[in-house]
């Protein structure tokens, strides 16, 4: 489209002013509605030879939702012309972390090469204090080559003094945007309007160079039989410029165009289909395209030109005119628009228009029905805004809304309020009309289950869940969709509860089922939630399986940009916990930090408990027993806040007591021990703790007795770790009793049990270094593991094993791998041959092949390379 056809002129002076301003870090353009801010930004951004990569975001009308704003900004940064980024835009989540999002935008901006300009238009529409605060931080910490332009109707409370003092803030104000008389002439000429010098001066004076006024005048003047008369009448009128000119312009439009503009003015976005619906006749597409081509305050929002937006000032005036001219039709128009939005699955718009139609009960019903899907789409602020729009009294007291309040409370962790609202909702559900009763009951039950999980109240929820997990036999598509959402949520909650109460096979089954369902119904957020819980539920499976589950959940979360969200925290913390057990402390630390970042907006005691446990284990592994005790004590404290008995309770308490004993406080540990109930006191974990206390008190015989039930398998234990620990404690007791032979046997048994998962941590925390050192190398079949453990005992962290290797070498045969595992030991080749019951020549052949395949020159470089490739673990030979 050439510029003359659009009626825009090249405002060279203004563009140059913006160029100069844009050399600073931040430029603000503050001017009233219709001053031409957006047009200026468009012209500047689209100018040939524009040296910046320009990322433009337009703030939606009355934007209350910080998340929507930041997602739009991130999208603009990723899709700025010339930007290479294959990443999908993250989807909205119920748990939005503003600071993390700002960091993400900043880091993506820093990764861009060349000059980048972030343009934020209509910033006055952003009504989220959190978003404005984070935006201030973004603007004051922009990377060197990144600049920003903010367009707003009024000065904003962004704290940019720092930039101002540094001379990095430029301002363009209303006076700079006004058309000069020369520009007014150019505009008229470009639009093919001939006007006398006097007429021109009059027009310029009357509009005071206000861009919207001039553009409106141009539309009316374009086909006016007597432009001079138009200008004379206009300047003679006392009416305000915009009102006069819009009335003039509307009057000059054909009837069908007037009807379309008025009736669609109540929409934020207009499509031809919606316009046809609201005007009751076809042909809207042609009109909308023609209006945009005539530059008549109508702009398309997509390259296909299916959605349009009216200039806000224009839309506001049209809306007033609609209410004045056709007041009786307004509710009906809103109702029709609402129906269209319901049919097209756009719940928030549907509810907004139902409210505008004055149909409060209908709006309450819609909001109750869609609160789940809106919550899952991360639109909690939208729900809150919709709730606020209900008038006090009949509207706001609608019992359907109790359900909505409860859903919002739950997302934000206000558990007591959620419970109160749920009681109201449950009472209402029993008296609701039959067609709604089932649906409401299901919704209430689902929320009650979520509440129970968050409170750690695990008992008595299974029945509710069975009710939920049965498929809803709904009539309508919405019934089925709602049913599927609720079922997926129910399966996630049920599986999570089962995992916490150690019904692990059931937990895995339900979580897997939930993940499959979530994928089928297109709810990636729920899929991530189920998979993350699955990672936790598989914590006592072979470590390779646990890690695979955790990594799958994390990878999926990363794909949607939720890698640091609370939803994936169970997988993050389980992975960290798994890594600490195998002595990969640095890697554990990395994942633990990521978990802590993910939990910034979630204070649930259930998940934080796990973080403290892993933190405690990591400190213990690094020999910092004081810090370890802090971690275990914090975990113990949170555990006591949960309503139900926690599945890991005996482990937390056991480790806390053992750490106290190791710190020379066996007395305190003893008194805690005495306070335990019988069930916990008889667990394997507490048996181990008792043994540690006895060892600290110098009673090795009592220590042996304490672990006896674990060793003979009669005490209940949480996983293999407890058993390995018990053998090591027995080994220490034997050594203290002077029975080195039994000590060696216990150590070898512990190594054998530890080998499949390459467990390292129990050796370190129990202080079994000396046991390992004392074990003759020819008496162990686990030399490689033993070497690794001693490395950790001597203060190093094992390199991560399960990161993909950089280059795949030619695969080693199983026999070669067996030989390889002896290379880190100090056994000679004849000794290795004897261990493996093969000839020295065979060993030599294998070693030669190993060197060749690993491209190693000698034994130590082969070991080095094998470690890098994670070939030394027993798991790799299977």
């Amino acid at each position, binding site marked *: 489209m050439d510029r003359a056809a659009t009626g825009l002129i090249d405002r060279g002076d203004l563009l140059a002013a913006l160029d100069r301003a844009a050399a600073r870090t931040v430029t603000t353009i503050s001017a*009233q*509605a*219709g001053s031409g801010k957006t047009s200026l930004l468009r012209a500047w951004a689209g100018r040939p030879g524009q040296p910046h990569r320009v990322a433009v975001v337009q703030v939606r009308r009355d934007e209350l939702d910080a998340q929507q704003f930041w997602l739009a900004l991130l999208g603009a940064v990723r899709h700025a012309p010339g930007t290479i980024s294959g990443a999908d835009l993250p989807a909205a989540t119920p748990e939005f972390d503003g600071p993390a999002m700002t960091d993400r935008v900043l880091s993506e901006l820093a990764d861009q090469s060349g000059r980048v300009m972030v343009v934020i238009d209509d910033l006055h529409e952003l009504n989220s204090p959190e978003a404005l605060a984070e935006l201030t931080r973004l603007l004051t910490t922009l990377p060197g080559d990144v600049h920003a332009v903010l367009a707003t*109707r*009024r000065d904003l409370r962004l704290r940019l003094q720092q930039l101002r003092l540094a001379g990095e803030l430029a301002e363009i104000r209303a006076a700079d945007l006004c058309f000069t008389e020369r520009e007014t002439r150019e505009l008229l000429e470009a639009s093919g309007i001939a006007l006398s010098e006097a007429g021109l001066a009059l027009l310029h004076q009357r509009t005071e160079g*206000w861009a*919207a006024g001039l553009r409106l005048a141009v539309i009316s003047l374009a086909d006016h039989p007597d432009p001079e008369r138009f200008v004379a009448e206009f300047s003679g*009128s*006392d*009416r*305000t*410029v*915009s*009102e*006069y000119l*819009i*009335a003039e312009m509307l009057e000059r439009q054909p009837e069908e165009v007037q009807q379309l503009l008025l009736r669609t003015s109540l929409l934020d976005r207009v499509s031809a289909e919606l316009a046809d619906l609201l005007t009751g006749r076809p042909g809207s597409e042609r009109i909308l395209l023609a209006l945009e081509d005539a530059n008549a305050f109508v702009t398309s929002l997509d390259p296909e030109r299916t959605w349009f937006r009216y200039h*806000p*000032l224009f839309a*506001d*005036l049209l809306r*007033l*005119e609609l*209410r*004045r001219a056709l007041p009786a039709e307004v509710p009906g128009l809103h109702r029709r628009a609402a129906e269209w939005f319901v049919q097209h699955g756009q719940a928030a718009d549907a509810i907004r228009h139902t409210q505008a139609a004055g149909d409060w009960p209908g709006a309450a019903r819609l909001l109750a029905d869609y609160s789940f899907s809106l919550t899952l789409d991360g639109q909690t602020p939208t729900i809150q805004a919709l709730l606020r729009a209900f008038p006090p009294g009949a509207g706001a007291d609608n019992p359907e809304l109790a359900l909505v309040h409860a859903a919002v409370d739950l997302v934000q962790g206000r558990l007591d309020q959620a419970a109160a609202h749920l009681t109201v909702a449950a009472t209402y559900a029993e008296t609701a009309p039959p067609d709604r009763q089932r649906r409401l009951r299901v919704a209430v039950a689902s929320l009650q289950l979520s509440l129970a999980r968050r409170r750690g109240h695990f008992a008595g929820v299974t029945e509710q869940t069975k009710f939920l997990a049965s498929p809803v036999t709904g009539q309508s598509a919405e019934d089925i969709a709602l049913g599927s959402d609720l079922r997926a949520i129910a399966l996630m909650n049920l599986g999570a509860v089962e995992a916490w109460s150690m019904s692990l096979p059931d937990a895995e089954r339900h979580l897997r089922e939930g993940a499959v369902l979530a994928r089928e119904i297109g709810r990636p957020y729920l899929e991530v939630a189920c998979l993350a819980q699955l990672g936790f539920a598989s914590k006592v499976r072979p470590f390779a399986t646990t890690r695979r589950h955790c990594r799958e959940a994390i990878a999926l979360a990363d794909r949607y940009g939720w890698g640091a969200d609370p939803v994936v925290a169970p997988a993050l913390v389980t992975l960290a916990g798994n890594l600490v057990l195998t002595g990969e402390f640095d890697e554990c630390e990395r994942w633990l930090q990521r978990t802590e970042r993910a939990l910034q907006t979630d204070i649930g005691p259930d998940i934080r408990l796990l973080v403290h446990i892993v933190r405690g284990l990591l400190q213990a592994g690094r020999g910092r027993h004081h810090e370890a005790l802090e971690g275990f004590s914090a975990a113990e404290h949170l555990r006591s806040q949960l309503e139900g008995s926690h599945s890991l309770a005996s482990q937390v308490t056991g480790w806390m007591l053992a750490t106290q004993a190791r710190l020379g406080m066996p007395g305190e540990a003893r008194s805690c021990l005495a306070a335990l109930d019988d069930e916990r006191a008889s667990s394997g974990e507490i048996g181990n703790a008792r043994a540690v206390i006895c060892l600290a008190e110098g009673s090795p015989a009592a220590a042996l007795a304490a672990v006896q039930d674990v060793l003979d398998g009669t005490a209940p234990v949480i996983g293999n770790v407890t058993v390995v620990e018990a053998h090591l404690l027995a080994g220490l007791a034997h050594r203290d009793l002077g029975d080195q032979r039994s000590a060696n046997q216990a150590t070898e048994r512990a190594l054998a049990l530890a080998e499949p998962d390459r467990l390292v941590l129990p050796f370190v925390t129990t202080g079994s270094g000396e046991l390992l050192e004392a074990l003759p190398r020819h008496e162990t079949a686990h030399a490689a593991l033993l070497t690794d453990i001693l490395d950790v005992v001597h203060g190093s962290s094992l390199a991560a094993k399960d990161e993909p290797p950089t280059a795949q070498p030619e695969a080693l045969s199983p026999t070669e791998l067996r030989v390889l595992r002896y290379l880190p030991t100090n056994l000679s080749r004849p000794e290795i041959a004897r261990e493996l019951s093969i000839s020295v020549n065979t060993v030599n052949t294998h070693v030669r092949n190993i060197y060749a395949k690993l491209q190693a020159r000698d034994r130590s470089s082969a070991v080095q390379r094998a470690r890098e490739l994670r070939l030394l673990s027993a798991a790799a030979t299977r």
Partner: protein
Amino acid sequence: MDPAPALYTIRIHGHLGATVLSAFPALVPRHLGADTVLTGLLDRSALYGVLAEVEALGLDLVEISQLTPQPKSPESGDSGPP
């Protein structure tokens, strides 16, 4: 901040027509020269609502003032709109 509603006059440049006036149903308009003066009893939030409307409609705001009642003759009402 005074929570009680007070009488405000809001002066806008130009004569407001029926369309724009419909945005201010709580206010009484009168013309004063080339300006329009809107008068009405507003509490703070209603006042800010009116100002937002003025901003949204691109109107040319000239002056806002609060009419303080005469302490001596509170019932005389001579300062109200005609």
